[in-house]
């Protein structure tokens, strides 16, 4: 796969797992949306179908931790930790802003699903920046 080019063995395994989790997420999200909309799910089943799509996302978070444990290339591990740190910082900043806006401005705040997207965006942009910074120093 193109995006695996030059990646370590641990990173390739991590990327494969993330793809599998994302495929599972797409299927589960479709099923949940369908059941909630068409089946008129109530009470227990409503909670059940609401929680199920979160499981693959939690799986991705778990897999990040496993990757950090498996990665033998210490520099790659450092880059990943830096990008997770930036993602977490962006996430916490968004939560704090959101809470103050809700508390003082009585605004509904950010729509659902934004927080994980903010974390992923922070992490992804940091990884892209670090990769670009290194690429400029490649000599062969």
């Amino acid at each position, binding site marked *: 796969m193109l995006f695996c080019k030059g*990646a*370590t063995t641990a990173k390739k395994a991590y990327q494969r797992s993330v793809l599998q989790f994302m495929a599972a997420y797409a299927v589960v999200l479709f099923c949940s949306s369908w059941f909630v909309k068409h089946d008129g799910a109530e009470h227990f089943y409503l909670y059940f179908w609401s929680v199920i799509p979160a499981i693959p996302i939690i799986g991705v978070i778990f897999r990040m931790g496993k990757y950090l444990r498996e990665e033998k*290339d*210490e*520099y790659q591990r*450092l880059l990943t930790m830096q990008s997770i740190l930036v993602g977490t910082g962006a996430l916490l900043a968004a939560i704090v802003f959101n809470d103050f806006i809700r508390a003082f401005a009585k605004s509904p705040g950010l729509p659902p699903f934004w927080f994980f997207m903010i974390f992923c965006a922070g992490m992804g942009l940091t990884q892209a920046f670090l990769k670009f910074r*290194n690429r400029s*120093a*490649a*000599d062969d």
Partner: protein
Amino acid sequence: MTNRLKEFRQEKGWSQQELGDRLEISRQSVIAIETGKYDPSLPLAFRLAKTFGKKIEEIFQDS
């Protein structure tokens, strides 16, 4: 910290990828060490020294 990694690598005629393969690290990591953006841990510095048949202090100098 400065290092002579690039010089020793070129003496051997190895590419950054080849050196990375020998050390079981990525090419990106080799670039970061060569350019001084990343100082390797002691175990990796020992592996580097062993790969080139040099002493650690021949490769890395305190600037």
